[in-house]
């Protein structure tokens, strides 16, 4: 009887050792260590608002939509919406991370009226920026401005 007990105990001891080693292995396999938190509050070197690229996008989009067209009061609202949406989508495709984009497109008929536009912003000049462009034709002109605002 005593011998049997001893044997049983040894077997259990061996089993527990194996289980113990298996336990040591599994935490490493299943849990991936979390990446350390990043405390970046500014865009990285290549991640700032790309003014030149955005300006090209605006210029191209306005030309595509308005070149060769005459001002029409029933069509102009639609053109303005199309330009704003197209510019916004193309700027998003540039893939600037953590930037909020605001696009405003204005179409004005050329009839000799005097127009003055002004804008002012409260933001962080190190991270936020804007780009604007003007398209002129015989009967109208279109002014589009794109703002990029960084989200901390």
């Amino acid at each position, binding site marked *: 009887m005593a011998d049997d007990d001893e044997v049983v105990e040894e077997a259990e001891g061996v089993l527990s050792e194996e289980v113990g080693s298996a336990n040591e292995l599994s935490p490493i396999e299943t849990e991936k260590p979390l990446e350390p938190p990043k405390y970046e509050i500014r865009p990285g070197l290549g991640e700032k608002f790309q003014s030149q690229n955005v300006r090209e996008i605006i210029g191209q989009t306005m030309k595509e939509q308005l070149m060769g067209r005459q001002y029409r009061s029933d069509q102009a609202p639609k053109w303005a919406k199309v330009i704003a949406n197209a510019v916004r989508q193309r700027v998003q495709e540039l893939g600037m991370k953590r930037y909020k984009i605001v696009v*405003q497109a204005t179409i004005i008929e050329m009839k000799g009226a005097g127009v003055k536009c002004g804008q002012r912003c409260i933001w962080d000049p190190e991270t936020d920026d804007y780009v604007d462009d003007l398209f002129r034709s015989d009967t109208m002109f279109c002014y589009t401005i794109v703002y990029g605002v960084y989200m901390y």
Partner: protein
Amino acid sequence: MEVKECNDLNEENQFIVDDVSKIIKEAIENSIGGTAYQHNKVNQWTSAVVESCLSQLTKLQKPYKYIVTCTIMQKNGAGLHTASSCFWDNNTDGSCTVRWENKTMYCIVSVFGLGI
């Protein structure tokens, strides 16, 4: 994730269009209320409207970045159309546009508020 949702529902983190609209209307009335279009003064007027809007908005003391644009146009029969398209967070960000006119000119002011 849960903490962020609570923050968005907080009143401080929402763009309230009515308040902003009131601020804009006051700013326009005070700057160009009873005047007629004058080409040499338009510069001053746009600056005055924009600056007064912005100073009132900052007095709200909210964690927001603001963009204020103002367009003043002479009444000439010409047409003007504006469209805007924005990529932002609908819970915290918003915009407000006010159209004002008198006998000689139109004034259009847009305010975009983007949460920090």
